[in-house]
C-alpha cells in the first residue's frame, strides 16, 4: 500500500457496489469511482512522470476522480481552491507550472486571465471522453502526491509538497484516534482543496466508508437533512458552522445530529462556549479537534469528552509525532514557537521556497506560539509573527481579541501592532460592531479592567469588513 489509490483499489475489490461518494448530483459506488479514476489517469500518461497537474473544482465527484486519477498516473495533484482570487490563481500557476489544468464548466470562467500563462486547459467531461483506454496497469508513483499552497495569512502563498507517505501516516492516525470504520458515513461540508476536507476524503477511502460532500454551508438545513437521510455517523465542520448551527438552528441541529458518533472541527480556534454547548447537547457524541498545518497535518488530536477545563486545548501529539515548544534562544521553553517532527511533516516546499527558515534538523518551525500544560496538552497562543512588542513587553493579539470579542455588540475584532515613536509598537484594534452606540471609550474601559495596561488598545478603528483569506483567516499584514 503506497498511495491512497491503493486503498481505493482494495475497497473496490472488497465492496464494489458500496457507495463511496454522495454529492447533490448523485451516488457513486467504489467500482464506478475506481473505473473512472483508471479512465481519467490513462489520458494523463502522455505527460512525463512527476508532472504537476492542477485540479480546480468545487466539492464534486469530478474532484475525487481527478485527484485520484492524477495520483494514479504518477503525477502531482496541484489542488486549487474554487474560491481562489484571480491574483492568487495567477501566482500559483506561475509557481507550479502545471502541464494542464483540469476544471469544470462552472469554474472554467475563472481561468480566463490565465491565457498569457500558456497552460493547457481541460474541461473534465471532455477530458474523460478523450480517455477511452481502460488501462489497468498502475504507473510508477511519484514520491509526491499533492501540491497545496498555504493560505497566505502572513506572506505570499507557498506550496506544500505532500508525499504519499505523509498522507498514509496521517490517515492511519486519524483512523486510529477517531476510531473510523468502514460502516461510517461522513458528512463533509468542507472544501476538499483544504487540508481538513482532503484529510476527510483520505480517511473515507482508507477505511472504505462513504463520504457525503456538500459544497458549502449556505443552507444549514440541507446539511442537517442529509445527516438524517443517510444516517450519517460523523460530521466535520469548521467552528463558525457549528456556532451558526447552535445559534440559529439549535433544535434541528440536536434532532438531526444526536445519533452522530463524532463531530470534528478545525481550521480556526474553537470557542470554549461552543465546546461546552456541544458536549452538553450531544452527550453520546465524541467531539474532537486537532492542530495541524498543511505542512504537518493532524499533529495533535483533542477529544473534549471527559476533559473538563481543557476546552481551549488542541490536545496531545498524534501517535508518532513529536512536538516541542522553543524560546527565542532556540532552547525548549514553557512558552514559545511550536516545532513539529514526524512522518506527517513535509520534507520541503515547492521550489524549496523558505526551506531554510522553516526546517531545522527535521523539525518544522510552525510560527505558531504555544505552551504545554503539566499533563502534556498543547494550547495555541497565537502566531509568532503577529506578536506585538510594546516597549519591550510581548503582546499576543489573540488575548486582546478574545477580551474585546466578549464585549456585547462586537461582531469581530483584530489587534495589530502599529508604529509608535515612544514604544516602538502600540496596539491598534480594528472592530466590527452591530451596536451603533458602542464607542471606543467603552472598549478601552473594558480592556483596562481586564488586561494589563500595555495590552490595552491605544487606537481603535471601527470598520465594516476585515481582510480575510479564502479560508476565513485574517490577513493582518494588510492592517499594519
Amino acid at each position: 500500500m503506497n498511495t491512497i489509490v491503493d486503498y481505493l483499489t482494495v475497497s473496490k475489490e472488497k465492496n464494489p457496489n458500496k457507495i463511496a461518494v454522495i454529492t447533490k448530483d448523485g451516488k457513486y459506488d467504489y467500482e464506478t469511482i475506481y473505473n473512472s479514476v483508471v479512465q481519467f489517469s490513462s489520458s494523463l500518461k502522455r505527460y512525463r512522470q512527476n508532472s504537476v497537474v492542477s485540479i480546480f473544482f468545487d466539492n464534486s465527484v469530478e474532484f475525487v476522480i481527478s485527484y485520484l486519477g492524477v495520483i494514479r498516473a504518477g503525477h502531482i495533484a496541484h489542488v486549487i481552491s474554487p474560491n481562489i482570487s484571480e491574483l492568487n490563481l495567477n501566482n500559483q500557476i506561475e509557481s507550479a507550472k502545471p502541464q494542464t489544468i483540469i476544471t469544470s464548466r462552472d469554474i472554467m470562467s475563472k481561468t480566463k486571465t490565465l491565457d498569457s500563462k500558456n497552460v493547457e486547459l481541460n474541461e473534465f467531461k471532455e477530458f474523460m471522453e478523450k480517455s477511452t483506454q481502460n488501462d489497468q496497469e498502475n504507473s510508477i508513483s511519484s514520491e509526491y502526491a499533492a501540491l497545496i499552497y498555504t493560505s497566505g495569512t502572513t506572506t505570499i502563498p507557498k506550496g506544500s509538497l505532500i508525499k504519499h507517505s505523509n498522507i498514509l501516516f496521517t490517515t492511519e492516525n486519524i483512523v486510529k484516534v477517531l476510531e473510523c470504520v468502514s460502516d461510517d458515513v461522513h458528512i463533509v461540508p468542507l472544501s476538499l482543496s483544504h487540508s481538513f476536507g482532503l484529510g476527510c476524503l483520505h480517511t473515507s477511502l482508507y477505511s472504505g466508508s462513504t463520504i457525503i460532500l456538500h459544497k458549502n454551508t449556505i443552507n444549514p438545513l440541507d446539511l442537517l437533512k442529509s445527516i438524517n437521510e443517510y444516517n450519517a455517523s460523523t460530521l466535520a465542520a469548521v467552528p463558525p458552522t457549528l456556532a451558526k448551527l447552535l445559534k440559529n438552528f439549535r433544535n434541528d441541529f440536536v434532532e438531526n445530529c444526536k445519533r452522530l458518533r463524532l463531530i470534528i472541527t478545525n481550521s480556526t480556534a474553537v470557542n470554549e462556549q461552543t465546546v461546552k454547548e456541544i458536549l452538553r447537547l450531544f452527550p453520546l457524541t465524541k467531539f474532537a479537534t486537532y492542530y495541524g498545518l498543511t505542512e504537518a497535518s493532524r499533529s495533535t488530536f483533542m477529544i473534549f469528552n471527559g476533559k473538563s477545563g481543557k476546552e481551549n486545548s488542541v490536545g496531545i501529539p498524534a501517535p508518532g509525532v513529536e512536538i516541542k515548544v522553543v524560546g527565542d534562544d532556540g532552547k525548549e521553553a514553557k512558552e514559545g514557537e511550536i516545532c513539529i517532527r514526524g512522518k506527517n511533516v513535509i520534507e520541503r516546499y515547492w521550489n524549496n521556497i523558505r526551506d531554510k527558515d522553516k526546517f531545522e534538523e527535521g523539525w518544522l518551525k510552525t510560527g505558531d506560539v504555544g505552551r504545554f500544560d503539566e499533563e502534556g496538552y498543547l494550547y495555541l497562543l497565537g502566531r509568532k509573527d503577529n506578536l506585538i512588542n510594546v516597549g519591550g513587553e510581548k503582546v499576543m493579539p489573540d488575548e486582546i481579541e478574545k477580551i474585546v470579542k466578549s464585549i456585547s455588540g462586537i461582531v469581530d475584532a483584530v489587534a495589530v501592532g502599529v508604529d509608535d515613536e515612544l514604544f516602538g509598537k502600540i496596539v491598534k484594534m480594528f472592530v466590527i460592531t452591530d451596536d451603533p452606540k458602542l464607542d471606543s471609550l467603552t472598549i478601552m474601559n473594558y480592556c483596562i479592567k481586564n488586561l494589563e495596561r500595555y495590552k490595552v488598545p491605544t487606537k481603535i478603528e471601527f470598520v465594516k469588513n476585515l481582510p480575510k483569506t479564502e479560508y476565513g483567516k485574517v490577513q493582518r499584514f494588510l492592517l499594519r
Partner: protein
Amino acid sequence: MLEKTSSVEDELKKIFLTIFPDMTESSFDWKKPQEHYANWDSFAQLQLVTAVESKFNIMTTPEDALSIKTAEDLLKIVKSRI
C-alpha cells in the same frame, strides 16, 4: 459657547474615568497631579492623548504629551485645538 465648554469638560472627565477606572466621579480633581494617580504611567499618558485626539478630532505634539501633568493641562490643550 458655555454649552460647548461644558461638553468638552464632561467628555474629558469621561476619558479620565475610563483610563483610570479606580477613580470615582467625586474623587476626580482637575488639579490632581500625575504622581497622585495610582496608574498614570507612560501607557496611560499615551492612552489619554490618543483618546482625546480621537474624541475631539485634534492632533497633539510630543511636546504636548510631555507637558500634561494634570487633567487641567490636558483640558487646556484640547481647548486650544478645537
